[in-house]
Structure formats: C-alpha cells, structure tokens
C-alpha cells in the first residue's frame, strides 16, 4: 500500500483550508503537481510545497505529519482511503465524509465530523465544540459512520444527529445530543448540563446521571434491555468502556425525552 507523506515545514501563521488534500484528489498526481496546488488561507493562497515537504507516492493513505490546529478542513467530503494526522487538526475535520478513515493523534477543533454520512473518525486527544454538528443554516448532523474521541468533547456534541455512532471516552460539555433525531451516543466520563435538550429520538448511554438534565425528561425506572446485548456485540473490538460492555446482565435506568420535542429519545444510565 503506497502512502503520501506531507510534513509541515513550520506552523502556518494563518489558518489554511486543507480540504483539497484527500487521497482521491491527489491520486495519480506527481509531487510537482501536488506541490503546485493552491490552498485557500488567511491572506493570499499558499502553495502546498511552500507549506509541506512532500514524500512518497499518492495512494490509499495520506499522512499529514507535524500538523497543527491551524489546518482546517482536513478530510472534507472524504470518500475512501485513509488520512492519518500526526499532531493536531483544526476545524471541520472530516466534515461531510462518506467513507474511509481519519485518525488523529492529537486534538481537533470545532465541527469535526460535521454532517458526515459514513466512514470512521478517530481522535486520540480532545474534540472542540459542535462535534458532528451541522453548520449554522443546516438541518442535519451526523448521518452515519463512527466517531470515536478518546479525550473530551466540547459543547453541543451530536447536535441534530440522525444516524451512526458517536463515542466519547472522556467528558463532554453542555448540551450533549441537543436536537438529536436518531442514532447512538455513548460517553465514558461526565456530561455537562442540558444533555438531550430538544432530543426527538435516539439513544444516549451514560455511566452516571448527569447534573442539569432538562425537566422535560421522564424517569421510566431501571430494567434490563435486550437491545443492549446487540449493542455490546456490535461494539466488540472498540476500546473500553465501549468494547467491554457486558453482553448479559446489564441494567439501565431509562429516562425518556425531550417532551418539549418529540419525546422519544432515551437517556440510559448504567446501573
């Protein structure tokens, strides 16, 4: 498997839009052609070879080494292939991606995975606000695929999510799963106030009852749910605390809401 490696020469002074850098878009191009591509940036556009050293040959995998939080839009609309980010990524990482894999060793900015429809997005560090959320004016957040954040996520993670899986190993900020329509979100740590505000359907799996839950959620009591067995099997192979979900004997306390919206969402608290 061939790989193209772009190594940042120095931290850019301005934000740079890296959306044109995907394995598919660079496939078949020579190093000179790739180097001559222009990226929109604060101030005048910049050439790829002014920003990065270029090694290897384009193929399935693109490695962005020495990346910083100024690199926006990495993996935008990714449709196949793998992008490995060695370092941090800026805003809009994997926005609208459909298939393929993005792995980030550091942390990412706002709107990572915004409106993605499929594929896999894995972040070793933290994610900023609006993880998976639609941009202002849009109606739909994550519509498919898997997002796994090993650190914390900011506010509004999973806003308007409709499908897919959003897993956050650490803590989240306020308004997790706001306006959620469907899909599954699980969190390993603590959750900020207002979780599930405007939630219509969908499932939120949490280790403990969060503070500041909207009054428009109803407690339905604690019981076993056979659906959790299927979920546990589907998550085998993922890191803890998701991959080690017990297949049997798991009981959850179920809260239904948000009754101010459609009210068919559920927040499941592990008993």
């Amino acid at each position, binding site marked *: 498997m061939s790989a193209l490696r772009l190594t940042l020469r120095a931290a850019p002074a301005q934000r740079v839009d890296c959306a044109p850098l995907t394995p598919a878009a660079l496939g078949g191009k020579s190093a000179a052609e790739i180097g001559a591509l222009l990226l*929109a940036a604060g101030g005048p*556009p910049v050439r790829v070879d002014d920003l990065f050293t270029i090694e290897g040959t384009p193929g399935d995998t693109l490695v962005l080494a020495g990346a910083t939080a100024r690199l926006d839009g990495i993996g935008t609309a990714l449709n196949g292939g793998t992008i490995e980010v060695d370092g941090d990524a800026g805003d809009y990482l994997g926005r609208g991606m459909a298939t393929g894999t993005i792995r980030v060793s550091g942390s990412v900015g706002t709107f990572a995975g915004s409106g993605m429809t499929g594929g896999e997005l894995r972040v070793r560090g933290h994610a900023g606000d609006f993880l998976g959320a639609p*941009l*202002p*004016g*849009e*109606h739909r957040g994550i519509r498919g695929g898997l997002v796994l954040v090993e650190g914390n996520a900011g506010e509004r993670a999973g806003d308007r999510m409709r499908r897919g899986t959003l897993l956050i190993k650490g803590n989240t900020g306020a308004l997790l799963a706001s306006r959620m329509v469907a899909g599954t979100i699980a969190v390993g740590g603590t959750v900020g106030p207002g979780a599930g505000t405007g939630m219509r359907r969908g499932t939120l799996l949490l280790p403990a009852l969060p503070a500041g839950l909207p009054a428009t959620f109803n407690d339905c009591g604690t019981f076993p749910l056979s659906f959790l067995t299927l979920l546990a099997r589907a998550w085998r192979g993922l890191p803890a605390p998701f991959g080690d979900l017990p297949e049997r004997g798991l009981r959850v306390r179920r809260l239904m809401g948000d009754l101010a919206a459609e009210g068919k969402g559920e927040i499941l608290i592990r008993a």
Partner: protein
Amino acid sequence: MLLKLTGGRVYDPAHGVDGQVRDVYVRDGRIVAAPAPGTTIDREIDLRGRVVMAGAIDMHTHIGGGKLNIARAMLPEDHRGEAVQRSALLRASCGHAAPGTFATGYRYAEMGYTAAFEPALLPMNARQAHLEMGDVPMVDKGGYAMLGSDDFLLRLMAAGTEQAVINDYVAWTLHAARCIGIKVVNPAGISAFKFNARRMDLEDRHPYYGVSPRDVLRTLARAVHELGVPFPLHVHSNLLGVPGNFPTTLGTVEASEGHPIHLTHIQFHSYGTEGDRKFSSAAAQIAAKINATPNASCDVGQILFGQTVTASGDNMSQHRNAAVASPKKSVTMDIECDAGCGVLPFRYKDKNFVNALQWAIGLELFLLVTDPWKIFLTTDHPNGAPFTTYPHLIRLLMDRTFRNECLGTINPDARTLSTLGSLEREYTLYEIAILTRAGPARLLGITDMGHLAPGARADITVYRDDANREAMFTTPEYVFKDGEEIVRDGRIVKVVQGRYHTVEPEYDPAIDRRLAEYFEKYLTIRSRHMWISRDELSGLGHDAEVVVHPTRRAR
C-alpha cells in the same frame, strides 16, 4: 480617446439594425458618429465575426432591500459553497441564490449586463436598499417603490380622497425613496394579511379599509400615468402561485382602465385548474390578452430547476407556501408597520409535476407573446432562478432542438399537458436584443441606454458567435461600460461603480404637512427622516452619479 469597434455584426433593435456589419465609435463614454476622415483613432478593436449589442438591462431583479438580507441570514449554506476569492482587483464575496453585493455586480458584468433594477424597494427601507445597491459594483441600478398596501394610501382611498392628492403622495414617494417607478405587490393584500385575510381577489374588500385590489390598481396606474412617469405601474398581481389564478391576472390588466400597466413574473399568474391534478397552463389566455392590449406588457419570471430562494413583499402568498419550503425554513414578517415580506428557500425539481409545468408555462408565455417589445427576460431573480441562469434561458428560447431535449426530461404528466413541444418559434438574436436591451430601456424611459446610436452611453457587449447560445451569452468577449473595457473573455478587468436612475415628478408640497403629521402619529420615523436627498443617494452609492430622467405630466 477615440475607440473604434470595427466590423462587428450589430444588433440594435431601437434603430432596426439587425446584424448588419457596422463600425461603432466611442468617445468620452458615449457612442459617437463616424469621425471625419483622417481623425486619429486611439484604439481599434477588430470585431469581425463578433456579435455586438448594447449592454444588457435586467428590469426585474431582487438585488437590494431588507428581504435579501433576511434571505442571506436565513441561508448561510447558500453562501458557503460559492466563494469569490479576493484578488488584486476584486473583493471577496459569496452566494448562489442570494449572493453578496460584490458577487452580484461581478456576475452581472461577466454576463454582459450593465444595469439592474430592484423591483420591490420599500419606501420605508429605501436608505438600506440604496446602500446595498450602492455596494453592487459594475452595473447601473434603480428601484421601484412599493405602494398599494401602505396604510397612508389605503386610508386616503377609504376616505374618498381625490386623485390629485394621491398623485402628490405617489410623487412624494418617488422623491423620498429616490426611485424610477412604482410597484404594487398583491394590491391591498399585504395589509389585508395583517387583518387576518388569507386570500385577496380583485373584488375582495380589505377587511378594515374596505378598498379592493381593483381600486388600488386603478388608482395607482392612473397616478403613475398622470404624473408622467415613463415606467408603467409595475404589478405583481393578487393570488400569486394559486391554481386557477389566470382570470385574476386578466382582470388585473382590465383594472388599469387603459393606463399603461406592466405585469411582472406572469408565469406565476398564468395557472388554470384543468386536469386530474387541478393545475394547468393558462399561458395561451394570458399571452392572448397581452397581445391584444396595447397598454400592457409583461416579464415572465421563468423558473429553472435547482435550488434558489424566494423573497417577496407578498407576505400572504409566502405564508401560504411556507409548507413547501426546501430546506424547511421560512420567514413571514411585518416591515416597519408599513408593509410585509416573506422569504423561503425553494428547490424547483424537473421531476415534480407542478414545477415542471411551471417551467413549461414560462416558456409557453415567451413563445406565445408575439411582440418582443412587450415581454422581458426575467427569472424574477432569485424567485424563479438566480440571474446567472439567463444564458441557459436564452438557449431555451433560441434553440428549439435543445428546448425539446429538455422537455423530454421533465415530469411526463407535465410534458403531456403542455403545448410547449408543438411551439416552433425560435427567438432570433435581434429579438433577444429587444428583450434584454432595447425593450427595458424604452419601458423605463431611459433614452440613452439599450441602444447603440450616437449619443447613447457606451455600454456595449461583444459576443463570439456560437451555435451554443448558452456558452455564447455566458462569456462575452468584451464588455464596455461608459466606454471603458470592464470585462475581457468573461473576466473582470476593471471595476466601476455604476449610477442610480431616478425620476422626480412635480407635486404640490401641501402633501408634506399631511405626511409629517401622519408619520409623527403612526410610523416609526419622521417623514423628513425617510426622505433621501439626491446628494445623500449619491453618497449611499460611493459618490455615484444620480440621473434624474424627465417626466411629462399628462394633464
């Protein structure tokens, strides 16, 4: 500096020039007669084989005013995908259906347009609208002041006030709002909506003032005529978009009682109720009426398939249509207690029966109205489609084979119901030059634009002749504005500002006191604050020139 454009095929319908090879001379921003032999030519451009026309004029395009800003605020997604990057010459801008001011000016010029007129300028919002249009570079502009649902007029009419006073008010409005014409939208209906009426037909009475749309149409058409404003009353009829609305449209023509009347975006007003789905084309009846009525003209408001946004003063119809917004969001609101507006995004789909038939109805109207001086090429930007689709629309009109290919791909039920496939007419370049140049200038009463005779402003567009008319009209080879080369090969080479076009009909200043009292009592600002002076207007447009076109009192 004397410029000679040599050997092009000139289309100048105002003077009956139909593709004859002519030289065009330009000096000091104007077209001049051929100079005496031996005169030094400073620059000569060889245009042999090229098509030469005056700069195009869009006589109905929503490019300024509050509703556009509502559309922009409501549709950030419309802007994100269509960025215009800053260059040494151009400012950054964006937008597809509701582009920013800079993108608007650039795209018009790139298509060979040199003037654009905003048809729904709310007098109360005039300052903001002119500021916004002042920021649109490259093209001349002007506005039509919206009356007909304003409480002051309805109040005067309800009290039986004589026409002379109403004329004074209309004239005052043209001065105060610095406009070139008067527009009426859903006559009396915008106000009636606020009194909970949800439908206004010609004979219906306003729930509070008791006046009917017919009364409003007659009164305003007469006022515009008696004030000697060249541009006829610009009418957006009642019942926009309602199946079976065509008798109302026919009645609207009658309601002007012989005074000049222009029906705008008639495509949306040419619907019957035949067939299983109770939606059919009445283009034939409407076209026959336009053909038979010497005092009537129209523009089409063609729809073209794709995403756009509809923005209108017609709160009543926009409220009715809010359920079909796509994506699902809309705004219906009051403006300054004096008018209203409605904005909703819309995606016209070729496989949708209603949309496909709307598309066909618009084209039927283009082909059935026989006199090209009475019909104008518009999409009611952005309501039917963004103005950037004009080259595509021109190809549909000029190329029957292409038109029938497109017809073959639309919703089959709509195709069966439409007579479009049987219409053989193909527009000529001469007729296109009437629809987009000579006709609008004549209707607006602008005597030195839209043609290429000596004395005209040297707004000139040069096209490479191309059997693919869409390609031809998308990318002119040269565009000159006031004699300066502003576009070369579809790319802007010089940024210019453009001027405002206005009229200032005479009126009895006694109306000032009456208005001052009324504003003081009922409105959000004083009348003297609403008033925009000529100097202020110039400032709103970055020191733009303000042209006042002559009016001639009818009595």
